[in-house]
């Protein structure tokens, strides 16, 4: 009945693939009902998101943001904290980098400005996560609730700041001024021209680096050990001399910093200005990614790419097929999370029975 009976290849690959396939099957049913051919749509989707280099560039571009928000949620989860606030932390992180850029983009060269701006985004994200962390650690206020509240508060605050201070005079776009070139992240199509005109930029590389660091820190360092111990058993962590409140506060701040860094990709890598509600749900998708990727670096990477591909491919598909609104892909995303993230054992009994019969 459980996964333990199955060989590793089955739990690591066969089951997730079967689940993905099931989710797509349900999605295909809906697409069929909408009057389109599922097979053709899948073809378009894969082509647009993966095969076509420019499409792949967009897929990875979206993935870069999701890796950061996914990491943000994951690192908090390691400490047993469910940070729903990555959205707000990313939003405020965007303000941090924008302030740095607006102040310095006429005077500093890119190689100095960009790291400074990233520092700004991380610092603001961390600061925004500090209070929920502090309240959880010292007052026991549920971090789930406080981070939800902080998302709303961030939205109001950012609305106020952007509208009252950042919109250039006489403009109506609810966004800051466009950054000077020094603040534009170098694009990867400089090195890989085949990617064509995509916003894919060095933050994707940074995201990969962040994944590796995350893996190392969580599983290979003393601090990571303490982090996981706190997440799994607070009593034992206390017994082991780990400062629970310090761990919680620092973890939340790291989580916030990672969420803040997610802003770098979309603000400095694509729009080059800070606009109202720019995170557009990336923080929430981070939750899905952390849960689906089981907080494991490889899992986070793969689910980020899957989500990036769905957004990119789905968008292109809805361009071609008028009957399929883009919202269909929100629905499909949900299905995939449901099947791959919450029903991982759906086929375990059947597969296990099948393997047993073969043995005999």
């Amino acid at each position, binding site marked *: 009945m459980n996964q333990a009976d199955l060989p590793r290849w089955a739990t690591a690959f066969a089951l997730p693939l079967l689940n993905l396939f099931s989710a797509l099957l349900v999605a295909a049913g809906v697409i069929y009902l909408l009057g389109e051919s599922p097979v053709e749509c899948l073809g378009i989707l894969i082509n647009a998101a993966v095969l076509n280099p420019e499409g792949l560039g967009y897929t990875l571009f979206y993935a870069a943001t999701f890796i950061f928000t996914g990491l943000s949620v994951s690192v908090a989860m390691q400490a047993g904290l469910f940070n729903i606030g990555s959205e707000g932390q990313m939003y405020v992180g965007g303000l941090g980098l924008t302030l740095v850029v607006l102040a310095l983009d006429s005077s500093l060269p890119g190689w100095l400005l960009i790291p400074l701006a990233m520092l700004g985004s991380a610092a603001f994200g961390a600061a925004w996560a500090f209070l929920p962390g502090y309240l959880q650690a010292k007052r026991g206020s549920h971090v789930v609730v406080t981070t939800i509240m902080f998302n709303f508060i961030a939205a109001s605050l950012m609305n106020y700041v952007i509208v009252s201070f950042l919109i250039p005079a006489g403009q109506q776009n609810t966004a800051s001024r466009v950054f000077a070139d020094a603040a534009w992240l170098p694009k990867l199509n400089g090195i890989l021209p085949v990617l064509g005109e995509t916003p894919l930029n060095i933050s994707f590389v940074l995201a990969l680096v962040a994944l590796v660091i995350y893996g190392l820190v969580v599983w290979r360092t003393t601090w990571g050990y303490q982090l996981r111990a706190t997440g799994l058993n607070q009593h034992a962590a206390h017994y082991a001399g780990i*400062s629970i409140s310090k761990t919680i506060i620092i973890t939340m701040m790291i989580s916030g910093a990672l969420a803040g860094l997610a802003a770098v990709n979309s603000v400095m890598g694509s729009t080059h200005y800070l606009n109202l509600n720019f995170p557009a749900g990336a923080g929430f998708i981070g939750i899905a990614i952390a849960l689906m990727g089981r907080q494991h670096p490889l899992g986070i990477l793969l689910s980020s790419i899957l989500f990036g591909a769905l957004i990119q491919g789905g968008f292109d598909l809805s361009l071609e097929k008028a009957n399929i609104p883009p919202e269909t892909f929100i629905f499909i995303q949900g299905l995939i999370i449901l099947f791959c993230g919450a029903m991982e054992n759906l086929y375990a009994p059947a597969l296990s029975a099948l393997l047993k019969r073969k043995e005999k």
Partner: protein
Amino acid sequence: MQPAVEFQQISKRFGAVQANRDVSFSIAPGSIHGVIGENGAGKSTLMSILYGYYRADSGKLLINGAEQHIRNSQEAIKLGIGMVHQHFMLVENMTVLDNVMLGMEGGFRLKPQRHEVEAKLREICKRYSLDVDPLATIQDLSVGVQQRVEILKQIYRSANILILDEPTAVLTVQEAASLFEVLRLFKEQGKTIILITHKLQEILEITDQVTVMRAGTVIGSVATAETTTIQLAEMMVGRPIVTHLPRAAYAPGETVLDVKDLNLVNSQKVSLLKNVSFNIRAGEIVAIAGVSGNGQSELLEILSGMRLPTSGKLQMQGKDLPFAGRKDADGLPANFRELGIAHVPEDRLRDAVIKNFSVMMNSFLGYQKKLGKSFGLLDYKSILKNCTDLLAKFDVRPADPHLRIALLSGGNQQKVVMAREIAANPKLMLVGQPTRGVDIGTIESLHTRLLAMRDAGIAILLVSVELEEVRALADRILVISGGAITGELKAEEFDATEIGCLMGGIHTH
């Protein structure tokens, strides 16, 4: 006469572990039947099969002569089977009454039944001399009383076959004695009782027949009258057991821990420790004896840095323990450990291990800071080596460092914790209930370890509710009652009656 319960060739396997293999024996109706065996021998698994928790992979189960397929606990209950588990099965934030009613409410509305059941409970309490307030909330009750609630539940349900899985592990001698009174009453009423315990004395005291298990199989069933504890112990572990362990002469060194006027008042203004003063010298074992819930747990917590005292002077080798000016104990245990204080906590599952970590990852819990290489990286190579060594040295079974520790039996988990704390080479060792739920073979080896530490000049504070254990280990015995030390005895003055009086708060001197 038909046996009340008959196991025929029962087998059960968990992954790689064969928990039960071809287990066959039968239990006469109206008898008290003991089941003993080492940790991990498969006793609980077998009982879980009887109670419908697990389904046997193969084999037959006969209740009163008829074959039964018990698929879940509801069906077991219908067959008149009741079980008191190793870990209490009580809903902590509910009242005794609600816990008793649970599953047997007898109607949609609770109110009318509540009155009825309450009256019935009071009557049962009287008849069996069980002192339990039906309206008390479980979490406010001591373990002994919680145990009584479990029994109460079974009486209320009028179970005819009653399984008790290590019911006395957390009870004092007195509490155990009153439990046995109840069991004898049961027997008189013709009920069948299955009793699992690691205390062979209890087997002799109360059972009619005893079945010994080892490594999932039955070694034999004998009539209690025809056996002795020594025989039983040998059957269990397959080798003779030494009951009186050799120890070096008492030659304590200088004072390691000095406690003066320690007080603890909790947030509800209840005084939990009152002017506790004592010291421990190098090379001696000081035991704190007492009924559980009299401040021992808090004392251990304070001495290990897990909790702050309200007032008092605590010195380790002449220096104050570093908690002055702190608002909470968050992170404090690390500082205490650095001073050479090791701690085997009472509740190992809660405090001492992380269930989802492997044995290896648990083998350095608390000492993680010491294992860092550069950049705070953990040195897995040496960790694995250390862990493998420890497992071999302490005979942990299975000796697989990568196994999730939750899958080890309780005794083996305890060995891992002991091994870890001893390996830290402490100056002061705090040990809480080291052998709770542990089989006698393991007890022997754990006791040997503790004595060896003492002989090596380490100061040891032992907290135990087992007087036998206190007698076997202690050089000096402090008795605690109501948070105050009520008396002190030297090892040679050991007197169970006097200690019993002191534990009850009665001063004899």
